[in-house]
């Protein structure tokens, strides 16, 4: 992973000093709430329902074991002993004290971490595929490009006061695991007709109040032009994005209002004078970025023998075998697999992890996964490089800590925002809904029979729980002071990205497990052979589900 040099370290250290001064001035009454607001937000600090919330940046989801241990220490000493993985692959603390935030930032800086631009109307953490670098279907590793974008966007002087937040995702695979179609900018590594790898650039995607699938604005961009091209897009957005209405301020509204062709022309016009300028990437810089993401020291393993041994082990211990089947996936190196550590056990808020669990994952990463772990936008952790012959002891250790629920990609592996229990923006609670659904569908055999299902829950329009791109999406709404839940179906975050359609009138919280049950029964009745939930929905449409869910009891 990327290692800071003296320059990177200096930037985060100076940022801590700057924020320490700003916090002191605010606490001394020398700055108003309104003035302090954007400054603290750009350091990841919200003032929430119960306490401040601090969002720590995990650039494109990569963490090493030292950082995991530091996070465990911070959650224990400055918070209540647990942290939360967000859908931007970041880590959130729910109970820090404002006065202590500069100290927390200093602790983070000591392990090459920060909270820069994890909130506010600026360029946020760049996200990517959690299996980057190990996926068999990858054209090229997206992480060096994420790091190049991270450095370019960090404390960018021109783009810190944009009309609204701005999110970039990068992917390098044919199957999109980074949801690039629903980002302000999506960057995909693609080959042109000559076989040269460059970028396809999408703009104007997004979730929130007005979900939109991004439009391709550049079919193929030469690699060295990445930053100048991004700069041109941001400059068009910064100057022309709406600032009169925060619900119409995202770039998706601008792209729609201008039309894709006019937007593309505006970007080209801004790009022409800076193209080939000093921000053009050099070959040395690209190589430098790539040098941090080389393959670890894999053992030479006989893949066939290893996989045979694993099969035998799985047969002799079916619970282990089931976990291997559900929570691990193929690796491009023979004899290795990528493991997802499930943070979706019933009874715990999706994406929450305790200080002890963080420390355990750190130890396991050191022991079995070259000292690295990854956060995922589905709110789990990944150990990306595990030997097949070490899966068994790893599984035992995870199981002992409640981290081996074999549900990755299934119904109970839900995406869920913190919701009304924590977030001051929320209209409704989301965690209790997730928990009630998990309890209702505890029978894993039933869950496996349903096949892969993305169930995504957001507590409000801001859509942090990505409800628009769940196969089943749930949105908390406020109706005259009461919490209700709207259900939508047929969304997808993958290559076939789609925005889910609203099923009909919303439901009470206590009815939600039954509503989900009716939707699932409808699917099971209608599915043909191996058809997935999404496949059935795409074939039969919304109506059969609607009829079943809203049928009057006779």
């Amino acid at each position, binding site marked *: 992973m990327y290692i800071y040099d003296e320059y990177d370290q200096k930037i985060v250290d*100076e940022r801590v000093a700057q924020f320490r001064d700003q916090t002191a001035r605010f606490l001394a009454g020398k700055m108003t709430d309104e003035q302090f607001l954007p400054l603290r937000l750009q350091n990841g600090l919200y003032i929430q329902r119960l306490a401040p919330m601090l969002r720590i940046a995990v650039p494109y989801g990569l963490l090493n074991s030292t950082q995991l241990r530091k996070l465990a220490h911070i959650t224990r000493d400055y918070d209540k002993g647990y942290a939360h993985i967000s859908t931007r692959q970041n880590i959130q603390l729910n109970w820090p004290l404002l006065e202590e935030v500069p100290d927390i930032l200093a602790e983070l800086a000591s392990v090459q971490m920060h909270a820069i631009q994890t909130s506010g109307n600026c360029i946020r953490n760049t996200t990517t595929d959690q299996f980057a670098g190990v996926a068999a279907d990858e054209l090229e590793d997206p992480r060096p490009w994420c790091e190049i974008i991270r450095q370019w966007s960090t404390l960018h002087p021109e783009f810190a006061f944009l009309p609204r937040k701005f999110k970039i995702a990068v992917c390098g695979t044919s199957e999109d695991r980074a949801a690039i179609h629903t980002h302000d900018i999506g960057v995909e590594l693609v080959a042109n007709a000559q076989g040269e790898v460059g970028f396809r650039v999408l703009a104007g995607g997004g979730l929130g109040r007005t979900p939109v699938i991004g439009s391709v604005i550049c079919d193929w961009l030469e690699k060295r032009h990445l930053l100048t091209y991004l700069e041109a897009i941001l400059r068009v957005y910064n100057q022309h994005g709406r600032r009169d209405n925060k619900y119409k301020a995202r770039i998706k509204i601008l792209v729609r209002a201008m039309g894709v062709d006019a937007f593309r022309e505006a970007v080209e016009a801004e790009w022409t004078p800076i193209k080939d300028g000093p921000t053009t990437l050099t070959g040395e810089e690209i190589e430098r970025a790539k040098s941090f993401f080389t393959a670890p020291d894999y053992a030479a393993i006989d893949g066939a023998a290893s996989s045979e041994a694993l099969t035998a082990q799985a047969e002799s211990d079916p619970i282990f075998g089931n976990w291997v089947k559900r929570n691990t996936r193929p690796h491009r190196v023979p004899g290795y697999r990528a493991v997802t550590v499930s943070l979706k056990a019933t009874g715990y808020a999706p994406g929450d992890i305790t200080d002890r669990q963080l420390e355990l994952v750190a130890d396991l990463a050191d022991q079995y996964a070259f000292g690295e772990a990854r956060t995922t936008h589905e709110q789990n952790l990944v150990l990306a490089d595990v030997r097949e012959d070490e899966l068994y002891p790893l599984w035992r250790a995870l199981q002992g800590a409640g981290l081996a629920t074999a549900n990755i990609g299934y119904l109970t592996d839900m995406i869920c925002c913190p919701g009304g229990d924590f977030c001051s923006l929320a209209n409704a609670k989301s965690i209790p809904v997730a928990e009630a659904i998990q309890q209702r569908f505890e029978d894993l055999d039933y869950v496996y029979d349903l096949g892969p299902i993305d169930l995504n829950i957001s507590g409000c329009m801001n859509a942090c729980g990505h409800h628009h791109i769940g196969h089943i999406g749930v949105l908390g709404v406020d109706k005259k002071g009461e919490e209700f839940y709207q259900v939508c179906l047929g969304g997808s975050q993958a290559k076939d990205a789609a925005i889910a359609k609203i099923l009909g009138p919303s439901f009470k919280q206590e009815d939600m497990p039954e509503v989900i049950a009716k939707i699932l029964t409808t699917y099971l009745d209608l599915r043909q052979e191996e058809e997935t939930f999404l496949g059935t929905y795409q074939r039969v449409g919304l109506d059969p589900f609607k009829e079943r869910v809203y049928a009057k009891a006779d």
Partner: protein
Amino acid sequence: MPKLIRDGAITEDHWLPADGDQPGPNNIPTLAQWREDAAGAVQLEPGDGVTDLLPALDSLQLVAINFPVFTDGRGFSYARELRQRGYRGEIRALGNFLRDQMTYLSRCGFNAFQSQSDSELQEALDSLDDFSVHYQGSANQPEPLFRRRA
């Protein structure tokens, strides 16, 4: 005479912010007034853009950019674009920008700052040096860090 920070020092000068209705001789012309009678100084508001100025960059000595609210960041792009197109005169920030924004403003090409309060000019001056290293190229250092890294 109003105080301001220019090129890293506290100073004074005769220019007053624009007045759209009854401009006196010391008011910086608004973009509309400047269009009528192209002078050496102009004040941009958010939304004005820099396109009109581009053909006249050589004849301008002062471009003032107003920040009615500090959260409206359009002026950052205006300054950056003016510098990238070769403008060498003064770019002055006016209005409600925060001292904590000055390091960014300066890197975008502002070299003068006229804040609404004169009281904290010295602290504001110190804020210009919050960071000693920057990843991006800027008006004062066109080369991004990756071209300068040892």
